[in-house]
């Protein structure tokens, strides 16, 4: 076999320092899923449309299928697995999705929650219109978005408290 074209990268994921090997072309989403085994970040498309892969990179919501793993080196990544408190209590946005039935199959949910948290932090107060526009890059095929919009509004309100 050819020599290993991968290199080691170091970054912070969910508050912990991690290291792993990645090739120059390895996507962050594949690094998270295959190398770190953080499979809560999902892959739903090949063209950066679905938003199932959204994570926070230095606090900003990004589609992790559009970022190379090496671009995340030395930076801070937060995934759906890193939202709950150490004592196990859910982030208010996670709790809101659960309470407001903001999911059916739940495949879009991690990306929705990560996008929604950023949205809740960026605009105040959130209106249903903000939410609908803010979630344009996250596709859900199950819910028709109704309960997702309710969940995001409730989660944003809870985050402000």
């Amino acid at each position: 076999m050819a020599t290993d074209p991968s290199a080691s990268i170091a970054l912070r994921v969910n508050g912990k320092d991690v290291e792993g090997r990645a090739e120059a072309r390895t996507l962050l989403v594949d690094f998270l899923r295959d190398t770190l085994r953080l499979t809560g970040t999902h892959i739903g498309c090949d063209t950066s449309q679905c938003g199932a892969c959204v994570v926070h990179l230095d606090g900003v919501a990004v589609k992790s299928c559009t970022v190379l793993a090496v671009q995340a080196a030395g930076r801070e990544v937060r995934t759906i697995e890193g939202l709950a408190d150490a004592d196990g209590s859910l982030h208010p946005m996670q709790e809101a999705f659960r309470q407001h039935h903001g999911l059916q199959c739940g495949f879009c949910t991690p990306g929705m929650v990560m996008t929604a948290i950023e949205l809740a932090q960026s605009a105040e107060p959130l209106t249903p219109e903000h939410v609908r526009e803010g979630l344009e890059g996250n596709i859900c095929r199950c819910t028709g978005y109704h309960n997702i919009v309710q969940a995001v509004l409730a989660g944003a309100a809870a985050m402000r408290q």
Partner: protein
Amino acid sequence: MAANSHGKTNGSTRWVGTRPVRPDGVDKVTGRARFGADVHLPNMLVGKVLRSPHAHARIHSIDTSAALALPGVKTVVTRDDFNDLPSEFVPAGEMLINYRDVVRNVMAREKALFEGHPVAAVAAVSEKVAREALARIKVDYEVLPHVLDVVEAMAPEAPLLHEDLITAGVEPAPTTPSNVAKVVEFKLGDVEAGFAEADIVIEREFSTQPVHQGYIEPHACIANYSEDGQAELWCTTQGHFVVRGHCAKLLGMDVSKLRVTASEIGGGFGGKTVVYLEPVALMLSRKSGQPVKMTMSREEVFQASGPAAGTRVWAKVGMTNAGRITAGEAVLKYQAGAFQGSPVQPGCMCAFAPYDLAHVKVVGYDVVVNRPKVAAYRAPGAPQSEFAVESIIDELAKRIGMDPVELRLKNAAKEGTKAAYGPTFGPVGLVETLEEAKAHDHYRTPLKPGQGRGVASGFWFNIGGETCATLNLGEDGTIALVAGTPDIGGSRASLCLQAAETLGVDVERIRPLIGDTSTLGYTFLTGGSRTAFASGMAVIEAARDMIRQLCERAAKIWDIPVDAVEWIDGEARPAGSNAGEFEPLSLADLARLAGKSGGPFVGRAQINAQGAGPSFGTHIVDVDVDRETGRVTIERYTVIQDAGKAVHPSYVEGQLQGGAVQGIGWALNEEYIYDDKGRLQNPGFLDYRIPVCSDVPMIDTVIVEVPNPTHPYGVRGVGETPIVPPMAAIANAVEGALGLRFTDLPMSPPRVLKALGDARVPKAA
């Protein structure tokens, strides 16, 4: 069952009809839930599929030697690895499949029949190596003329997909092959006589495009075949027992040697009822001796899975001036894709089902074309035929100046109506949904200038089928509920509620899980809106079985006859004063005493659920049309549907909302675009545009409850029907806004603009 006073509908329920937070909610919001692609095994290989670049081509030879020579490639499979299978039809969801075709759909044999058709597959140490290997496989194709359109495919000179396909359902049988696999016909009364009674007859031609189910989770599986000929398969599916059956057949295994576990499923809507990757992964694992994981890209999902059938429908409806519909007739031509088995039969069955008609005739054609084999998609076949009929009904109402809800009420199917497809309806809720529509604030609110309002009704028959369930009582009085139907939209919650109701215990005490194929008896898949109904019935039976055991045990402990014990509110009590004076024994008490008093308690049920309740719904929609861009905006949307009994109303509402929005996509945007070589031009979410959050408004819902008499709590299925009415409702609304009737879907901006332009020309002339 004298011991059981529960499990009967007496109007009041403690758990059924409540809205607890779902049992899998935490796993789904924390990323802990494991979907099809979320499992890693030691030594795991990556499997990848080589797909045909041609829509129709004879495969002369496949040379895999260069691929096999690549370091890191462990094995390759082609058609030579799968035995041919004889023609044999078996049910799959609401559709029928034929193993001769399944083996060919999974891996092309004589010919590639659509772009994306699998031709070979490799297993390698990494995805990169697997891709390189695919590029080294040499396939000698002879490209053949192809056909995509259903009407062209029916023409005598059309290229033949299957040289041995003789149309079934015609007498005498044709002597030459064609692309028409089957002709079906449903008849009631005498349509000629019916049309003779009519004052107004409208006939129109309609077309719909294939649309994909669009589940966000692509197909994925992991197969692990061991040296002793046993195998494990983990996959995202609506029915792991069905997957087991298909895979065992294709691999020549005993079903008992194949254990299939259903992962959490990221949407299916009917599209995950068939096998694509699973038999290939098993074969790669068998040949390599290592676990193999396979996932589809979104492009592969579009090219080679799903979709719903594209159709041409001709329909004709007659009516008196007083608004009595006298006859309905339709001819349905459905694309099956590369292999026979379109849902044209259910399309025929549903076409006129919302109406109480004396004279109906529907003929359906199942036609093969060079596209991916269609798969079920919510109420398969019904949206296309009902789009046609519900559009004409609207036009008829306008002709006589009658309110379209009123016209439907006048002719609505109800208890006692004989449907053209055979049955006479028991209690059904169409009239109730129409009455709710008429009274709804939405229907009474005046439209803004330029807007249009449309209504349409829809029908799906719903199914039952083979189903098992187990309740295992733990020593602390909590219960593990094991079902065999993958939970696609919250069914675990609804099964727990039905078990809690029957047992009279707190729902929090019941922990549901979906058992693998070795833990339960054969259980048919999640589809046809059967899970809350059929798995619900099985869970209720299992709960009754457990109650019987609990009462027997209490009788033994108290040393009284078993019929002197009754089960009330989750505890065994002496039945009346004659039975004796004993402190009640609760479920938890009996669980604690189980070991000492005779052993554990397991409630079981294995049923073939019959008597699914047909489901009707009525939708109201307001649209605005941008005359400059041709864009149709949904301003307001209301879904009204009969659920029989909503076990968990939030999940019923979720089904109604989700189905309606899928219907909005079908009506306004979604379609496959092919080039002249038969290659799909839009295999991604960028150009195949499914509704995003900002495309749709809140979807109001009204749940009507006309109980299904065969289910103890009155449950009907709810998941299928909501996708049936939207296309016609929206077309009717657009007609209201523009005065133009669209008979071809989707009503996308270019088509709307063109229609507006065409309409202007004669005016100017």
